[in-house]
C-alpha cells in the first residue's frame, strides 16, 4: 500500500497550531494535525458552572495533588485536561512550573484572554536600549495580521493611544466596576495609566459566537465559546474544509528527515496503544508550545542533525524567557467596606490594566530597561481569601468578613525576563518519560533587570493604593516561580542571521526550509504583553508564507 503523504503535518492544536491548521486547510492543503491529548467535551469536562460544594474537594483540590503545584489553572475544575504523565526535570538551582494542557485546543481552552499587541517599542527595543538585537521585522509588517486576528477572535477594549500599546479594532470594553473607578483616581494622582484591558471575551455576539454571560471563572473553560479558543473558533472552520485529519492522543516524538535533512513527517506515540507511528508530509509545522516544541526538535536527532533538527546555530532551546508574575501590592478599599456584594469577578483579572508606563520617553529613565504591566484586581471573588489575614473569631470575625468582602484589591505584575545564555531548556541525559523519550530539563533564573522591575512595581502599586484612599496590607514575599505565567518564549528565536537564530523572519527554520515553527518559541523577546494574540498573528503570517511556498513550488502539494 502506498503510504499517505499529507501536505503539512502540524504538531499541536493550541493558538499557534490551531491558526496554522485553519489557514492551511482553507487554502486547500491536506493537513494532518497531531494532538498529545484527547478532545474535550465541554458539557462534561468544563465544570465551571459547578459550585464548590458540588466538587469533591470544594474546588480546592485534593491536598496531595496541590502539593505538586501544577499551576493555578490546573485545578479540580480542569485537571482532566492537563498533562500529569510526562515529567520534566530542573537543573540544580532552577525552579520551574510547567502546566501543559494536552487537550485539543491546548491552553486556549483556559487562557487569561488579555490580548495586547506587541508594539514598535518592543520590536526595536535593542536599538533603543542596546541590549540584545532587534526583531527581524518592524511592527507595521505584523500590524495587519493583528487586525485580522482581532476580527476573528473578538477583543473588548478601547483606543488608548499609548506609545507601548498599538491600538486595534475592538468590541465594546468591559464596564468599570466601583473598584476600577477608585483605583483609576489613585493612578491619576500618581501619574500612571489605568485603562480597560484588551480582553478577548465577547462583550457582544461576534462572528457567530454568543456574547459572554459574565459568570466568571473563564480560566476553567467556557461551554458556550464566548471567548476565543481554537476548538470553538478555528478547528470547526478547518474541519468544514474536509482537508483536516486530526489525530488525538498522538504525542509527537521527533521530526523525520530525508537524506538532505529535510522534514518528511513526524514520528509520534499513540498514547492509547503505546505504539510508535509515523505520518508523512511535504512540510512540518511545530506548534507544541515553546518548551515542548524545543523538546521535540532537540529529540529529532539524525546523521544530518546530530544536535537536534534545524540546530546548526546551536540556539535551539536557548534564550528561554518568561514573564515574572507576582503580587506587587495587596490591601483593601475602605470606601467599599460594608457595601452590598457586586459581581466584580466576571473577567478574572482582565477588566482593567496598567499598561507599561516606564522607559517610554527615555529607554534608560528607570534603573531597569524595558518595562512591565500591571493587572489590578479585586472586589467580591468566589472565595474571601483575605479572611485569613483578619484577626479574631466569632461573630465579630464573621461580620468583618462580610463587611470586607467587596473591598480587597491586589496588583499583579507581568514583567519580561531578558534573554541570557544561562536560561535554556535541553534534554535530560538520563531521565526519560514513560514512552522512552528524554524529558525536558529547565535551566532558569530571574535576571537582575526583571527583579528590579518587581521591586519598582511594589513601590508604585503601594503608592497607587494609598493615593486611591486604600489600605496597603503587603505584597507577595517573592515573585511566583518561573513557569507560573505560562508565557515562556524564545527557544526557536527568529532572526535574519542563520548562525544565531533558529528561524527566519517568517518562522521558517533557516536550516530546514520545509520546517516551520508557530508558537511563542519564535519570539525574539518576551515583552510586557501576553503571548496568545501574538502567537495567533505570527502563526497566521507564517502559515500564509508556507502556503505561498507551496504556490511557488518550493514544497510540492500532494
Amino acid at each position, binding site marked *: 500500500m502506498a503510504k499517505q503523504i499529507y501536505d503539512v503535518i502540524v504538531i499541536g492544536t493550541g493558538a499557534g497550531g490551531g491558526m496554522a491548521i485553519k489557514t492551511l486547510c482553507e487554502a486547500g492543503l491536506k493537513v494532518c494535525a497531531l494532538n498529545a491529548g484527547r478532545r474535550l467535551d465541554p458539557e462534561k469536562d468544563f465544570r465551571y458552572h459547578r*459550585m464548590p460544594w458540588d466538587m*469533591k474537594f470544594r474546588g480546592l483540590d485534593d491536598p496531595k495533588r496541590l*502539593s505538586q503545584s501544577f499551576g493555578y489553572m490546573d485545578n479540580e475544575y480542569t485537571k482532566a485536561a492537563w498533562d500529569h504523565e510526562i515529567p520534566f526535570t530542573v537543573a540544580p538551582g532552577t525552579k520551574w512550573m510547567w502546566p501543559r494542557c494536552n487537550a485539543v485546543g491546548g491552553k486556549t481552552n483556559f487562557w487569561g484572554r488579555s490580548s495586547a499587541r506587541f508594539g514598535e517599542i518592543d520590536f526595536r527595543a535593542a536599538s533603543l536600549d542596546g541590549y540584545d538585537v532587534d526583531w527581524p521585522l518592524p511592527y507595521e509588517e505584523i500590524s495587519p495580521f493583528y487586525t485580522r486576528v482581532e476580527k476573528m477572535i473578538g477583543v473588548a477594549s478601547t483606543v488608548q493611544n499609548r506609545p507601548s500599546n498599538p491600538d486595534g479594532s475592538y468590541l465594546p470594553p468591559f464596564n468599570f466596576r466601583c473598584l476600577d473607578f477608585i483605583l483609576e483616581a489613585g493612578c491619576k494622582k500618581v501619574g500612571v495609566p489605568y485603562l480597560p484591558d484588551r480582553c478577548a471575551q465577547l462583550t457582544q455576539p461576534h462572528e457567530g459566537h454568543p456574547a459572554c*454571560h459574565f459568570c466568571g471563572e473563564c480560566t476553567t473553560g467556557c461551554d458556550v465559546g464566548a471567548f476565543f479558543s481554537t476548538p470553538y473558533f478555528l478547528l470547526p472552520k478547518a474541519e468544514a474544509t474536509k482537508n483536516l485529519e486530526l489525530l488525538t492522543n498522538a504525542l509527537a516524538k521527533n521530526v523525520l528527515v530525508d537524506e538532505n535533512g529535510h522534514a518528511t513527517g513526524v514520528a509520534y506515540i499513540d498514547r492509547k496503544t503505546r505504539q510508535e507511528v509515523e505520518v508523512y508530509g511535504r512540510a512540518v509545522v511545530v506548534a507544541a508550545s515553546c518548551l515542548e516544541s524545543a523538546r521535540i526538535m532537540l529529540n529529532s536527532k539524525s546523521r544530518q542533525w546530530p544536535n537536534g533538527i534545524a540546530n546548526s546555530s546551536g540556539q535551539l532551546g536557548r534564550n528561554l524567557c518568561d514573564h515574572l508574575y507576582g503580587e506587587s501590592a495587596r490591601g483593601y478599599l475602605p470606601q467599599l467596606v460594608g457595601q452590598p456584594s457586586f459581581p466584580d469577578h466576571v473577567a478574572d483579572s482582565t477588566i482593567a490594566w496598567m499598561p507599561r508606563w516606564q522607559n517610554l520617553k527615555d529607554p534608560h529613565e528607570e534603573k531597569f530597561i524595558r518595562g512591565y504591566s500591571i493587572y489590578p484586581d479585586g472586589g467580591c471573588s468566589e472565595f474571601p481569601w483575605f479572611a485569613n489575614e483578619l484577626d479574631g473569631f466569632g461573630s465579630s470575625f464573621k461580620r468583618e468578613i462580610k463587611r470586607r468582602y467587596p473591598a480587597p484589591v491586589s496588583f499583579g505584575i507581568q514583567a519580561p525576563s531578558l534573554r541570557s545564555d544561562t536560561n535554556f531548556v535541553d534534554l535530560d541525559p538520563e531521565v526519560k518519560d514513560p514512552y522512552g523519550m528524554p524529558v525536558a530539563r529547565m535551566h532558569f533564573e530571574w535576571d537582575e533587570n526583571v527583579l528590579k522591575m518587581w521591586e519598582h512595581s511594589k513601590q508604585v502599586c503601594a503608592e497607587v493604593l494609598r493615593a486611591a484612599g486604600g489600605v496597603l496590607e503587603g505584597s507577595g514575599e517573592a515573585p511566583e516561580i518561573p513557569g507560573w505565567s505560562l508565557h515562556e518564549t524564545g527557544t526557536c528565536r527568529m532572526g535574519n542571521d542563520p548562525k544565531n537564530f533558529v528561524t527566519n523572519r517568517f518562522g521558517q527554520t533557516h536550516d530546514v526550509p520545509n520546517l516551520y515553527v508557530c508558537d511563542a518559541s519564535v519570539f525574539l523577546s518576551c515583552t510586557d504583553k501576553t503571548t496568545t494574540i501574538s502567537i495567533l498573528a505570527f502563526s497566521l503570517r507564517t502559515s500564509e508564507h508556507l502556503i505561498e511556498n507551496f504556490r511557488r513550488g518550493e514544497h510540492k502539494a500532494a
Partner: protein
Amino acid sequence: MAGQGIQRREVLRILGTAAAAAHFPGFSKWTFACGHIGNAALQIKPAEYRPQFFTAAEFPMVERLTEIIIPSDGTPGAKEAGVAEFIDFMVANDPDVKYGLRTGLAWLNAHAEQTDGKPFVELTPEQQTSLLEPLGFKDKERPGAEAGRHFFRMMRKYTVAGFYTSEIGYKELDNPALKFYAESPKCPHPGDPEHADLSSAHS
C-alpha cells in the same frame, strides 16, 4: 444593575448534589439548612456522619471549634454548614496536616484540663471562649502559647475554607458567582468616581 440574576444550572446542581449525597463532606448537615431546596426527593435523612480521620472524641471538639469560629448568630454558621465534616474529609486526604491537628487538639484538651479541670467540650461556652481568646485575638495573646496559636490559626483557616465554599457561606456573603448577566456589570455610582460618599448612602 443591568444583569438579571439567574441561578446557574439549578436543576443539574440539585441532581448532582443528590447523587453525591452519600460521600460529599458537609452534606449531612447543610442540605437541610438550604431553604430553597424543596425537592421532596432530597428529604431523605442522611446517615449520621462517620468521621474518616478524627476519633469519636476528637470530632465533637472540631465541631465545637468551628461553631465558635463562625457561629450561628442571626445567620447560619459553621455548624449548619457541616464544616467539621469538611475538615475531617480534607485532613483525611492530607498527610501533611494530620499530625499537627491531632496534637493540637490534644494540647487544647490538656490546656482545658489544666485551666478549668475539664476536657474542652465539657466546658461552658464562656469558658471555651476565654480559653481561645489568647489564641485567636492579637491583643489578648499571652507568651508561651505559640503551638496553641498555630493550631488555632490552622483550625480557623479550615473553618473559613469549609464555610465559604458551602452554599450557606455563599448566601452569607451574597456571593455574586451564582449568577449570569446580560452585560458586563457596571459601577452603580457614576457621579462619584472616588466613591467618597458611599458609606452615608448605604448605611
